């Protein structure tokens, strides 16, 4: 899952990026409204966090512009203001939710998960066949055996499972699992897919991830009858 944080306060942007990356999200940071809006319109983010008071284009304007462009990406606004008017104004400008500074990091994570769940319409638990993913505890089970994965591997698998039965191109995968710094090199995906396949096979889960030649990868969930 790839997130965009638009926040001018360096301290906040920093711990958000570090904390969220530890939670297997790919995080891009923009320090002002204009850069943030550019990134939001160019890249395909799974969620955008906007601070209300940012230099250049205000958070509200960023929100409006994103919606105006027909982009329905979930937007979470961070605010240090707490008057009702400000919050209502923010939500009316197209934000999906808000969180007041200072906030609990766990609460932020939960609110992010709520928005991602809504946008994927996948329901609570992620699964493909006998493989289940707990996005809160970051655990993956095949049947009852837990598979230990690195954050990146986890993020890759999570993305593929969220988009199961859909072909995921390398460029889409890289957009959603890696942040901007890895943009150029898509071969890194093949490397991680190899790691993943090995770990899954060790747990007895074979041929889950299939290669679509020239395009990318897919996880097919078989209906119980056809298996």
């Amino acid at each position: 899952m790839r997130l965009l944080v638009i926040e001018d306060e360096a301290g906040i942007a920093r711990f958000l990026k570090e904390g969220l990356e530890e939670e297997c999200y790919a995080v891009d940071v923009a320090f002002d409204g204009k850069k943030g809006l550019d990134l939001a319109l160019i890249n395909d983010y799974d969620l955008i966090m906007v601070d209300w008071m940012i230099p250049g284009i205000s958070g509200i304007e960023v929100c409006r512009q994103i919606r105006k462009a027909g982009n329905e990406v979930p937007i979470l606004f961070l605010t240090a203001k707490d008057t009702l008017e400000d919050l209502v104004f923010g939500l009316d400008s197209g934000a999906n939710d808000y969180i007041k500074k200072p906030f609990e990091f766990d609460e932020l994570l939960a609110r992010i998960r709520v928005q991602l769940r809504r946008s994927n319409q996948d329901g609570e638990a992620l699964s493909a066949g006998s493989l289940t993913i707990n996005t809160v505890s970051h655990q993956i089970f095949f049947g009852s055996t837990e598979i230990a994965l690195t954050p990146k591997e986890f993020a890759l698998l999570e993305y593929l499972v969220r988009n199961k039965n859909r072909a995921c191109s390398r460029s889409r995968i890289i957009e959603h699992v890696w942040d901007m710094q890895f943009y150029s090199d898509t071969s890194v995906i093949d490397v991680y897919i190899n790691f993943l396949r090995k770990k899954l096979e060790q747990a007895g889960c074979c041929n889950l991830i299939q290669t679509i030649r020239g395009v990318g990868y897919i996880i097919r969930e078989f209906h119980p009858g056809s298996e």
Partner: protein
Amino acid sequence: MKRPGDEDIMTLHRYASDGRILPRMSLRNRIAFYYTITTALLMAVVFAAILFSIDRIVYLHFDQDLRHEVSEILQEVRLNGKLFSGFEGICELESSDEKSPGIQSSIVRLSVESGFIQLVDPSGQVVSKSINLDRNVLAFNSTYSGVRYFNSTVGRVPVRQVQVPLINKTGTVEAWLIVAIPTRNVMLVLVELKNIMLISFPVIILLLFILTRAIAGRSIRPVDDVIAIAETMTQASLDQRISLPRKHDELYRLSFTINALLDQLQDAFQREKHFTSDASHELRTPLAVVKGTLDVLIRKPRPVEHYEEKIRYCLDELNRMARLIDQLLILARYDQESIKPKTAPIEISSVVESVIARMEQMAGEKQISFVRGNFDPGMVSADLAMLEMIFENIFTNAIKFSHAGSSIEIEVARRTALMVCTITDHGVGIPEEKLQHVFDRFYRVDESRGSSTGGFGLGLSIVRKLADLQQIGVSVTSRENEGTAFRLVFQVA
């Protein structure tokens, strides 16, 4: 001990001391009430005067008629053969030797138009009377001496009558002539008039009250508008204004004044709101940074260096927050009018020197040098601590926005009764349109709340506050990319 009745007395007293006789009456009713009362009194007086004078005139006319009648009659009356004439002090004209007992008279004309005539001897005995009196007798009062007009009745008919003594040459009253005119018709008119006045009086007063009430209501309607707007006004809807009446009268001035007051109030609320919002933002941001950083830090075990780095980072943030709280407290403390500056005569140059000495290190970090210009001697009356704070803030500001390696020029000049201190830096300067806001709280010329300068936008508002408290003039001039000059103007102590 409270006696019963005390409260009533107190209530009365309160109304009396309020000057309110009619405490619950609306203004419009009160205007109508007072107006009506005044008019009623005036009308009563006028009505009474009219009735009184008509009464007088009517009787005057009656009396004139009576006098006329009497003189007519006298020409024809023979009393004991004597002819009487004149009017006042009627006296014998012709004497007659003819003596006969008792009074003999002849009333030639027994009826006078519609009047009555009667002759009475001094003892009150009727000697003779006009026929139209029938069996009635005109009233006679023997106690009167001389001519007398009075009201009386004949039967049931009201009359005005005159009683005239007929005096002979010896000066004794030989008989009394009484003439009466019925007054009924005129009296009826008079009574009618009185009745009309009595009935019309309350009607007129009532109409007057209703009319004045309506007119008063009309003319104070703008006041009702003012009340209606004032009642709906809350802190949130302070943007409402009273529509100004077309005529430039007292109500126009009232509305205008209230509107101006509302402008000020709204402005104050707005500033208050901004300040609170800015302060909460400025306090919450470092708090959010510290909390967030520590939240993330504690989620997993990490190497020691990592902890050290994060803790140091959090400490920096906390120090920044502490500085902000200090500044907010200074503003809050001096916002309360109760705190008065402890002014004493101070040599301004020495204060500047001591502050420069403290600032040298901070300036040195950016290779900025202080250049002293003219330092005229002069004492000013100021609070030393506050004055130092003013200079510290201005110097800090100057250093912050100076180009590295530039100089800051300080000058203290005496201008007759004023001491003028100028601090000029060579730095980024302030764009003209932003110059007027530099003393506003939380205002930063560079909008990005970056950590590049590390300020909160409070330093200069503290300067303004402290300067205002001590009647020190502060002004700023600036050119973008050239520098900024702050001027402090003191009155010589």
